[in-house]
């Protein structure tokens, strides 16, 4: 990702990118702010073109995300799965394992919970059932991630392709299940799964909102992953394996075993995200359970520079932009695509800002 190889006439490039060894505090603080300002300014052009008052629109993004109790809890509810899928991507990418399959793992975790939580295990009491379902969802995600890893280790197949394609397999499988064996007979023919038992639903964090304890679970997960990466032998070895596999092998890092652990952790987190979304928000599975949480997780991880603690903030930011921009378009009656563009712009400018806190341009 350095600037050495670009398609432009190489001889005329006057700039080079250079990694910063010291990051000035001012830059670290200022650049994300500038990024948001730049994104809003660019989005402002579109808002103005749509004939809406630009400054009011900006205000609406804020109130849309935080203005009311409902808005604020909604933002946090949205941030929860993003945090977990963001962690899934961050953990894998750190070890240079390109898990693009969090979406599929999310759905597999979700359908696992629906299957077990609606019938087989529903007789168990809540405090036993809920952790059990978490585990089951995570295992489902792990299992799905182990397929591309096995293909990579056995046949050197690029896991970017296989994990991405498995998303479609997983979603179609879920679709088959909720139109077949797991179909809810009381749903008037809608393809949705049987609901999980009431006592398998997650307790709310705030009454009369959708915000559930999944948020706390996600934050704790981020802390644990952070500790795992920075303080343990596994963390050190997985980082070494990612940064320089040959060097890691020379230093005696068991490469395959380390990657298997990383894949389990990554797939498990994505599966857990699906489980929590079912148990915390909807109670059942449909094929629109996720508005792309798995893919958005990749963005969250990049925004966080693959740092697990950064994922918490990045997930909040992403959720804020999602919810706030939606609120803006609803309140002002401007097309929803402007909201989408605003979200995309803010993610792009934020990535650029982060890039420049790490690299500098040199002539």
């Amino acid at each position, binding site marked *: 990702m350095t600037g050495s190889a670009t398609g432009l006439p190489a*001889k*005329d490039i006057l700039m080079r990118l250079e990694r910063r060894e010291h990051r000035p505090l001012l830059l670290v603080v200022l650049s994300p702010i500038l990024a948001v300002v730049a994104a809003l300014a660019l989005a402002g052009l579109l808002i103005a073109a749509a004939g809406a008052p630009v400054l009011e629109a900006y205000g609406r993004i804020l109130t849309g995300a935080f203005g009311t109790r409902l808005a604020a809890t909604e933002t946090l509810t949205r941030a929860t799965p993003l945090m977990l899928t963001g962690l899934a991507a961050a953990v894998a990418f750190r070890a240079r394992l390109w898990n693009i399959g969090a979406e599929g793992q999310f759905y597999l975790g979700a359908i696992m919970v629906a299957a077990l939580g609606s019938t087989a295990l529903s007789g168990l009491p809540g405090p036993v059932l809920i952790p059990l379902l978490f585990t089951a969802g995570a295992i489902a995600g792990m299992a799905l991630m182990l397929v591309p890893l096995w293909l990579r280790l056995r046949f050197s197949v690029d896991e970017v392709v296989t994990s991405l394609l498995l998303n479609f397999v997983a979603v179609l499988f879920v679709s088959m299940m909720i139109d077949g064996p797991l179909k809810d007979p009381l749903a008037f023919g809608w393809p949705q799964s049987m609901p999980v038992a009431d006592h398998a639903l997650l307790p709310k964090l705030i009454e009369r909102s959708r915000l559930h304890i999944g948020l706390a679970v996600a934050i704790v997960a981020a802390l644990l992953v952070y500790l795992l990466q920075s303080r*343990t032998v596994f963390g*050190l070895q997985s980082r*070494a394996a990612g*940064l320089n596999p040959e060097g890691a092998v020379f230093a005696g890092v068991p490469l395959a075993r380390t990657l298997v652990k990383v894949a389990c952790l990554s797939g498990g987190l994505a599966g857990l995200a699906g489980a929590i979304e079912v148990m915390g928000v909807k109670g059942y599975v449909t094929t629109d359970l996720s508005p792309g949480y798995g893919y958005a997780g990749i963005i969250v991880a990049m925004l966080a520079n693959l740092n697990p603690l950064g994922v918490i903030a990045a997930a909040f930011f992403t959720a804020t932009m999602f919810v706030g921009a939606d609120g803006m378009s609803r309140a002002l009656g401007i097309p929803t695509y402007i909201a989408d563009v605003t979200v995309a712009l803010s993610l792009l400018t934020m990535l650029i800002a982060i890039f420049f806190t790490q690299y500098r341009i040199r*002539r």
Partner: protein
Amino acid sequence: MIADTTAAPVLELAHISKRFGPIVANDDISIALGRGELLALLGENGAGKTTLMSILFGHYTPDEGTVRVDGVELPHGRPRAAIKAGVGMVHQHFSLAPNLTVLENVMTGTEPLWSPRSRTSAARRKLLSIAERFGLGVDPDARLGDLSVGEQQRVEILKALYNDARILILDEPTAVLTNIEAERLFTTLREMARQGLSLIFISHKLDEVMAAADRIVVLRGGRVAAERRAAETNKAELAELMVGHRVTRPTREPAKAGATVFQASRLTVSIGGVERLKEIDFFLREGETLGIIGVSGNGQAALSQLMGGLAAPTGGEMRLFGEPVSALDVHDLVEAGIGRIPEDRHRQGAIGEMTIWENAVLERIRQPLFSRRGIVNRSAGQAFAATIIEEFDVRGGTPTSRTRLLSGGNMQKLILGRNLYRRPKILIAAQPTRGLDEGAVAAVHARILDARRQGTAVLLISEDLDEVIGLADRIQAIVKGRLSAPIAAEDADPRRLGLMMSGDWTSSDRTPNDRISDGPPGEGHPHAS
């Protein structure tokens, strides 16, 4: 200063200065290059050679000074202008596309992007005529990725010549080449100079500078330390000028060989289905160094992989401390106190993006000193790294700074340090000084000799004959995956070693059932320069 007698200089660098922040990379440097001249720019790593050439080529803008080609000043920071004026540059790391053919690579950038068709046949004619003129034979239709490094470098040179370069700059051209390839390169460069081209090559190797250049400019600390005609100087003087003080490589005292700690009998190693080592025999003894010499690519990599715990033998026997072992694995080697210096310090020896302390402890991370129940003891790791930095004189980093920032020599000291700190019983050193400058070489040699004196059995695998002669007590040659019988260092002279490396093993060097009959390897005669 030596006046250039051959009319006006083709290239003139006048009073060039360049600072990067507090660092002065170039300080008032003036150099002139005559037509048909082969000039060497000699200096240690960090002396400012590459910065100067980057200024000449327009990659950097100098703070002061001018660059003139044929008396015409070049605008600063414009590589295009430099190319147009006839300056060509061959970088240390080639800027070629491995998936294109030689011809396509050479043509890249020479045609307007929007021209409807590419004038391939004219280009092919031009390329072939240039190749013939300078004896740079390559197949224009070969895919670049299929070529050897030496051939790729030829393509890089051809590319510069194709752009009508009259002044050619080569940045450390021999860093990636084998001895034979390097000799061939210098033959080509001499021929190019004879035909009127002007050349500058950057180097820190005294031998090649003495052998190839007409004139030598020595840079030290960003300034011109001296300028000499090659005929009027010698290696010792150049070494002193380059380093700023007298450097002497440490010398070896006679060995007091102890017990045999490792023995390989008729050992065969296959990697990827190819036999890389064939029925080799050797042994290592306490307090003694075994040197393995050979032309690059004859099985040295497999040998260091085997001894480094990365490859298992497919036949034969190994005894480690007298006990038969079927394979060495990294974990067991580290536990047994066997030090390993890998062939490629950047790819194998260290993980550049990780900190110095992490690199210092990575191979021993499972030991109770550095981790307990899977939790890393960071302060112990950092303390260990601090000790190594202190005792092995690693400069340019702290335990928590990134390893990538260290120069090659300091990175090698870190690797040496993490291995030698524990007084290993065996030290496997593969190409331990490759790419290091003279000062760092001396430091590494001193450490290896020191370890030997303290009883370590050393296996030294090196392509540098002087190094092996200087360090080893016994010497074996590796040729096509086979090992010659050992000779004592006292009996070694360059001629005999050259014959050994060519595979010409007389009956005295090998037991009667001599399996070697396929003659010398590769092309030419591997000659010790």
